[in-house]
């Protein structure tokens, strides 16, 4: 590892932090322009001008916006995400368990989806334009084209209702044994896998096909390497940067975009938590969840950038 690489990586991380700060401003501003404020929301129908004024005083709502922003930001940085209005519970505590659940689901979906997508992509390139390629592309496209709720309900119909292999409702709780937990998430994880598979697979295929035109691929063929080894040893390492990028985008989707799947399977994750509190207009919770989603998205993209930098031999081994 040499200094140009470290410099590039430091730049990416600094940019990510700046971006996250900018997003926190946007999230805060967004919730400010909504009509009404927290005091009104809490008091609801029973609000009198006096009680409103009192509560505003109490919550610090009369301070200028930037003071409230920094107050909120300070809280976030020290791990205090505030209190949910609807339930009066500490947001950080209730999010912790749910974030863990979401990550657990995303992790297992990714463990299946990423290698499967890349291997299918490699196979599609190996038999490009043949029937194997067309079959893989067709199935992958179909699975992406169906909306997630449709896939979810089809899975529930067959695996939960008809054959009764897996539960249709993915209830998990603290202290649940690992095996049961895995059984509970089998269907939502499958649904997620089917949704993200095609995008990654097609990108892998396209990135490798692009590299297959190179002179060094011809060199490898003329050494007598088998078609699959040419792809694996010579094409794939040079196609890795775009593949990592699309993989990370899909991982981010697995965490921040699972709302529909979580709702279908009644899975106690972040998505469901967010939907619940949006309907209740619980602004502090929406802010907190929004910020966490943004952080996940940005960090995964930073990881993709860094991986692409490290994968480039020109940067890793300067002249």
């Amino acid at each position: 590892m040499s200094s140009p690489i470290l410099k590039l990586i430091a730049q990416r991380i600094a940019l990510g932090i700046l971006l996250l700060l900018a997003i926190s401003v946007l999230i805060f501003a967004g919730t400010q322009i909504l009509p009404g404020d927290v005091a009104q929301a809490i008091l609801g129908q029973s609000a009198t001008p006096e009680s409103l004024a009192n509560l505003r005083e109490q919550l610090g709502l009369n301070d200028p916006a930037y003071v409230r922003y920094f107050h909120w930001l300070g809280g976030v940085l020290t791990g205090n995400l505030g209190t949910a209005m609807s339930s009066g519970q500490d947001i950080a505590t209730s999010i912790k368990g749910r974030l863990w659940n979401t990550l657990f689901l995303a992790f297992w979906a990714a463990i299946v989806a990423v290698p499967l997508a890349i291997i299918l992509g490699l196979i599609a390139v190996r038999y490009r334009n043949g029937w194997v390629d067309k079959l893989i592309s067709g199935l992958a496209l179909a699975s992406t084209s169906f909306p997630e709720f449709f896939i979810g309900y089809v899975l529930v119909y067959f695996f939960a209702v008809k054959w009764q292999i897996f539960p249709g409702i993915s209830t998990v709780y603290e202290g649940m044994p690992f095996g049961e937990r895995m059984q509970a998430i089998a269907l939502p994880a499958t649904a997620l896998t089917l949704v993200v598979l095609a995008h990654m697979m097609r990108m892998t295929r396209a990135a490798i096909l692009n590299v297959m035109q190179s002179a060094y691929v011809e060199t490898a063929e003329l050494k007598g390497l088998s078609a699959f080894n040419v792809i694996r040893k010579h094409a794939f390492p040079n196609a890795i940067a775009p593949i990592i990028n699309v993989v990370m985008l899909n991982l981010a989707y697995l965490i921040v975009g699972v709302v529909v799947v979580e709702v279908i399977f009644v899975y106690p994750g972040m998505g469901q938590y967010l939907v619940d509190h949006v309907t209740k207009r619980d602004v502090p919770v929406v802010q907190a969840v929004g910020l966490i989603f943004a952080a996940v998205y940005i960090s995964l993209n930073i990881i993709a950038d860094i991986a692409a930098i490290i994968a480039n031999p020109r940067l890793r081994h300067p002249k």
Partner: protein
Amino acid sequence: MADSKAKPGLLLDIRNLRIEATVYPPGEPPKNIVLVHDVSLTLEKGKVLGLIGESGAGKSTIGLSSMGYGRGGVRITGGEVILNGRDILKGGKEGFRKLRGREVCYVAQSAAAAFNPAHKLMDQVVEATLLHGTATRAEAEKRAVALFKKLSLPNPETIGERFPHQVSGGQLQRVMTAMALCSEPDLIVFDEPTTALDVTTQIDVLAAIKDAIRDTHVAALYITHDLAVVAQVSDEIMVLRHGRLVEWGGTRQIIKEPRQEYTNALVSVHEIEHAEQKPGTTPFLSVKNVTAAYGRSHIKVLKNVSVDIYPGQTLAVVGESGSGKSTLARAITGLLPPEEGTVTFDGRPLANRLADRPKEDLRQLQMIYQMADVAMNPRQTVGTIIGRPLEFYFGIRGKERDRRVAELLDKIEMGKGFSDRYPAELSGGQKQRVCIARSLAAKPKLIICDEVTSALDPLVAHGILELLLELQKEENVAYLFITHDLATVKSIADSIAVMYRGEVVRYGPKSKVLTPPFDDYTDLLLSSVPEMEIGWLEKAIKGRRMASAGN
């Protein structure tokens, strides 16, 4: 040639080889074309056969057929390729894989592109040997290091640890030769191995390849379009044209007593008589003490460069890649504003930056590039392309514009009918002619020609040079002619500037620059141009006073 089975030393025997491909012309149904028409050749063990011809002659296609390989959709549809006594075309895919990298190895034109950027050189050099199991890793690496030494690569023990981008082009070409030799094949196909290199680097690589062939007793097919190069390394030469055999004979016979007219044209292609014009009294364009660098870099690409250009004359700028000759053009046109120094035009200084120059100044300086096909919009017709400067600079439109376009097409010796064609429908030489017409349309005082003939076949390049000279007479236009090819310089220049590492090392009228005594660099440059003479390579290497920059 006699019946092959009678000859015991025979390695490769290609009989009536026919190669076809399907092409998809725009707007027409796909059709089959024959690339190689029933060509036969034989090669004995340890001998070198040169395959020579212009692009499209089928020389690479024939070379690759000895490995059973067809680029793109190319198919071998007839004939036999007998290697070591068996017809490899009957072996199928498995058979091809077993012989590629073991019996036959390949050295590509651009080693820089042919090495995988993601792997270390050593891993790539020994890959074929390990794949075919002819040696253990330790043995193969030992062999590779010995080959690096033989090919006089710097740091032979450690160069294998490097990645391709850490090694220069000339060195990579030698590493690729080592890669081909590492699995101890019977035959190596060299496909234009020195074409992409500078002349001064080419001579080293050529000598290294020649020594390696001699010491390892490997047979070779040496493919090139440069007769002078192939004359140095091969025992026999085969001249091909449009996929057909033109002439096949010993090297001496082909270059000294060619029997076919086409071979004769190839042998004598380089010479254009061009009488030097004496510089006039006042230059119309002067470059004074120009220093330039890219970005905020401390490395100056141009150092204190001064040259003058006289009306209607040609200044040739010669040097190898990286010497700053194209950067000089960029400084003159304002694409790269110089850090110091000035460019004066007609007695007044030109604005440094392109954006600050008035349209009239832009009109006076036009450019033609090496790659004609990427210098034109593929979706515009030839008429639109040539007509554009007429509209832009002179506001000429409609019928008058069409008339002028027809006139210009006539000047570049292309008929009116080309006006409606698209660039993709033209040959390489025709594309370059269209670019010339486009620059002429602006009626400039100076045309900067940046390696305009380097991508063309010798005979086509010859035609372009003659056209440029004739146009100069008619239009009294001056050329700044950038090239690395000294033969071209001799045929077109009135004065010459030799550049080396950003500096002009020799400058003056052609006759003076090309007359001894030379400085060391000009001497190296001149002595590195291959001559069509057997034994030239050894003489040239012996007589050198300085090593080339690639080493």
